[in-house]
């Protein structure tokens, strides 16, 4: 994962995290009896989703790079 990809992923993770907080506070929290419990659950969910996103992004980047490398290799073979 390059610096640029890392930046991009980080930025999206922040957006996802904050988005979950907004949605949670606006829509989900009223169903919780205890506010502190709700905040804890919210953070767990947000961390989980963010982590999942990072993992997926990493896999995607790796796959892309492998594909690109394979392509280059194929080209080189053709050239040769």
């Amino acid at each position, binding site marked *: 994962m390059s610096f640029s990809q890392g930046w991009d992923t980080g930025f999206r993770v922040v957006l996802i995290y904050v988005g979950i*907080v907004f949605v949670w506070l606006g829509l989900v929290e009223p169903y919780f009896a205890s506010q502190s419990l709700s905040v804890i659950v919210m953070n767990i969910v947000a961390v989980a989703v963010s982590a999942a996103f990072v993992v997926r992004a990493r896999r995607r980047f790796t796959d892309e790079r492998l594909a690109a490398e394979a392509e280059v290799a194929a080209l080189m073979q053709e050239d040769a």
Partner: protein
Amino acid sequence: MSQSLSVPTSRQRTAAGQAAMSDRWFSILLVVPAMVVILVFALLPLAYALDVSFRFADLTRGRIGDFVGLDNYRTVLHDKAFWDSAWVTVKFTLSAVFLEMVLGIAIAFLIHGATVGKGVIRSLMILPLATSAAVTGLFWRYLYDTQFGLINYFLGLIGLPEPNWLGDYTIALWSVILFDVWQWTPFVALIALAGLQALPKEPFEAAELDGASTFRILRTLTFPMLKPVLFLVLVLRTIDSVRLYDAVAVLTRGGPGTVTETMTFYLYRTGLKLFRMDYASTMAIFFLYAMLVASLFALRPLLTQFSSRASEG
């Protein structure tokens, strides 16, 4: 991530090591002045807002107060007036930007086909842009007046109904939109016109020789070639419309009631009339968030275009 904003840059740095290093430093040095200004004066307020959004802050009751956790966010997210103002902003932005784009492009075509007097036309078109909304808005209020206004006077002359432009809650928002359209359609038209004039002649001549219909030429040639310009205009207009404040402040002050209260005007009322900086900062952060998410989708093509062109050659 395949459509990532980033374009790998290492590829084109083919120059020898030392020159590349120096290139890199030179390019960074160039951005430094602008970035220093932006970082200091954009990030400090953001940090302030973030800090305040987690505290109690009624400025007329002492300084920035205690930490209150997420309470401000809860309040704002459950504030009906806030969502109402968000809805007004969405309605305004969609209508105003749509009208400005359509009319602007239509006017550009109209003028493009004109043979004489283009200079004069352009000069007159620039007028609304050169005036401030705070000032011209005042005169629009005067024009809109039911008793003293010219608009209703003319409507009365030709026997049409005379609406209460700014007082009728069903049309007040449209009156604000009309003002915005007046001020910004020429901007769209001028840019679209310049775009039209910069189009290469050859493809069109070829298409005409082929006997393609006007509509087909428009669809397959003109619009695709104009797209980049129009897209940039669209983005700039959208960002400005969402932030609409001056026109509302001078025309209706959000009234009647809260019918024309946009998000920025509500923010102004909360922050600078009620001095609840905690709520105002929270709203501002929500606003920024919404804009970032929207632009992530909307701006991607534009950014890719910039990035890829920068990496060419």
